[in-house]
């Protein structure tokens, strides 16, 4: 189906090749998993296989690439290639162009199928397969992350191409949503489709992927069956809080730093938080685990006044977090958001950190900036434009911006989204260091692996309630 021989590629603005000497052959009906650290060239390879690089991006090519026995360059652009290849990009939101799920699926079909009945049947079948029939009339903004991703996949499937390429479709999804997507891929494989998928979390593909390709610095570093490459279990796919190794939490004798009592929060008619009571102690490293929509982020936003409760008490040190001004609360509780790009706006790393310092009127800012940059490992990058940093570096810069304001409590919302294992571990090491310095760390995540490996205390949430509170003796912070 796909054959590449010594394929190399350099982006028009790039200096180093993004793909180096790629030779691979993918047969019809194969499901191939591509993995590797960030910036290893996985997305570039997807673009190459979809013909996007050759026909849309330009740049320098060498080697040979053929789809269905015909060189990619011989196809008349993406307009012809899209009859054989469809692609799901990593950002689900920007792939949904139309204003309802049904139209989204219909959008690619009109040039392919003439009969209206057939179009309707195809849409119906694809919606059934992806489990989105009930979302038929919904506009994109009323969909959750997992639903958006399934709609994006459905829109690609509706085109009924032989080859389907998916670039990190599960990066922002929890365990349940991820396994639903893997189920869809399984049934596509049974239909004989050729599937190429890029992903970081691997274990779900055991017994599903026919082959795994590991990429590093633009070339294929390892290739084989799943069991050959990863004989041991890769992270956990089951819910951690059903793990018998965890022991129920008992309070320590350290002073309490956050006290929450019967906290309630409603969004319209939905009970986002339904009677949360919990006390966190100085110097703890807490992971708050739960599926998407369980109320984790809503909970931590109450700790610095971004949200005010509909009922209950929240105390941070001596401050009443239900009424205290945000500007006072943020100096106690620093919250780092999931995506660093929601905050980076300045022209240099230095100015970016200075912004927070000036807002709170901190003294000797230059010394503080130097300090926090060395702490997060970004020394020497003071004058760099923040958006030119890599995703991992931007995430660490976001932490530095918050750290500079010297909050006692540091809250991280999904700190490992979009980071590979190396960068995730680096971020966690940084948190361990900060914990040793006396900070209290609260981490909201659906990543079981990092919670299990690092946190000292694990709080599990479901439907706006706390369903478990444990000591994690295996965690390096305990």
């Amino acid at each position, binding site marked *: 189906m796909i054959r590449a021989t010594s394929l190399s590629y350099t982006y028009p603005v790039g200096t180093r090749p993004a793909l180096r000497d790629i030779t691979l052959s993918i047969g019809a009906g194969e499901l191939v998993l591509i993995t590797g650290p960030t910036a290893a060239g996985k997305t570039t390879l997807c673009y190459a296989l979809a013909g996007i690089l050759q026909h849309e991006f330009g740049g320098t090519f060498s080697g040979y690439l053929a789809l269905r026995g015909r060189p990619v360059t011989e196809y008349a*652009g993406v307009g012809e290639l899209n009859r054989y290849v469809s692609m799901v990009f990593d*950002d689900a939101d920007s792939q949904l162009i139309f204003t309802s799920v049904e139209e989204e699926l219909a959008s690619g079909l009109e*040039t392919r199928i003439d009969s209206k009945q057939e179009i309707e049947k195809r849409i119906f079948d694809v919606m059934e397969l992806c489990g989105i029939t009930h979302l038929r009339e919904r506009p994109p*903004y009323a969909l959750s992350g997992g639903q958006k991703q399934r709609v994006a996949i459905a829109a690609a499937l509706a*085109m009924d191409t032989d080859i389907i390429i998916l670039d990190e479709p599960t990066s922002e999804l929890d365990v349940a949503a991820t396994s639903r997507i893997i189920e869809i891929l399984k049934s596509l494989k049974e239909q004989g489709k050729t599937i190429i998928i890029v992903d970081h979390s691997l274990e779900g593909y055991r017994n599903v992927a026919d082959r795994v390709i590991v990429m590093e610095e633009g070339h294929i570093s390892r290739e084989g069956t799943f069991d050959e490459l990863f004989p041991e279990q890769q992270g956990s796919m089951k819910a951690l809080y059903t793990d018998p190794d965890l022991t129920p939490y008992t309070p320590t004798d350290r002073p309490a730093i956050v006290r929450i009592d019967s906290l309630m929060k409603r969004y319209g008619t939905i009970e986002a938080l339904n009677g949360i009571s919990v006390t966190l102690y100085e110097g703890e490293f807490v992971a708050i685990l739960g599926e998407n929509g369980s109320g984790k982020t809503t909970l931590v936003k109450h700790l610095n006044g971004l949200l005010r409760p509909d009922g209950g008490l929240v105390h941070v040190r001596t401050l009443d977090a239900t009424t205290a001004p945000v500007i006072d609360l943020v100096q106690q509780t620093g919250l780092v958001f999931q995506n660093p*790009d929601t*905050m980076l706006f300045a022209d240099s790393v230095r100015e970016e950190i200075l912004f*927070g310092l000036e807002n*709170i009127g901190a003294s000797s800012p230059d010394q503080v900036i130097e300090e926090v940059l060395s702490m997060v490992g970004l020394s020497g990058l003071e004058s760099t434009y923040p958006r030119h940093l890599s995703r991992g570096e931007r995430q660490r810069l976001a932490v530095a911006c*918050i750290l500079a304001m010297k909050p006692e409590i540091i809250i991280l919302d999904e700190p490992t989204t979009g980071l590979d294992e190396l960068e995730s571990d680096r971020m966690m090491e940084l948190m361990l260091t900060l914990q040793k310095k006396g900070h209290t760390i609260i981490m909201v995540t659906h990543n079981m692996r990092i919670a299990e490996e690092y946190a000292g205390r694990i709080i599990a949430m479901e439907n706006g309630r706390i369903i478990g509170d444990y000591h994690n003796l295996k965690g390096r912070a305990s």
Partner: protein
Amino acid sequence: MSEILQYIPGNSPLHTINPVTKLLLVILIVGLCVMSSQIPFLCFLIGVLIFGALFSGLIREIISQIPFLLLLSFFLVVLTSLTVQEGALLLPILPSTDPSIQGFGITMGGLMFGIILSLRFIVMITAFQLFVITTKPSDLVTGLLAFRLPVDYVLMLLIALRFIPSLQLEARRIHEAQLCRGYNPGTGISGKIRSMKPIMIPLVANSLAKTQVLGLTLDMRGYRARKKLPFHKLVFGPGDMISAILILIILGAFLYLHFFMA
């Protein structure tokens, strides 16, 4: 969260009117309100719109706009009162030393002009709002295509409408992220403008970052050489007959008030 300018699903009379008819109605109403400077006629148009909203159970959407419309009207009246010096002086601000010329102040002409301008804006905004919230975006597109607008432009409008709620959400997220860094929204007009930077820059940069995937998706679905969009045929029904009668009534009122009364 209240979504700006988003379709509200429903089965009201306004929903069932054909988008082409509705678009004609909106064009007519907006066109006439710009041409007319008679307060009774403008009030009549507002009445028609309120009646339409009441009839379709959407009056709450219109009411929610009132604070904004009042604020807009206030600024317009202040602006015109201070700039248009015409007619009798109602409230002198700078008295004239020369009896042959009138002093500077709020004049009848300025006040009236401000009121007319406000009424026009109220008509235009309300008409457009009612149109957008009762028209499924795909029907809107079909309507626009029926007026022979090029597919590219229609697609642009559709995508713009689609991304308004996403941008709202993103702006809120950015605002919260900056609050966590002690961001102060600023006081006074210059402070407000200066404090836009930490919000606007991430918003624009993140939106631009999305365009590549959006463009590629359109390409992969084969929109590059597309002449048609995948939307439904239009059906005319009883609602359209009523609209046709309504169009005649509005035109009649316009002609009567402007030509026979004058």
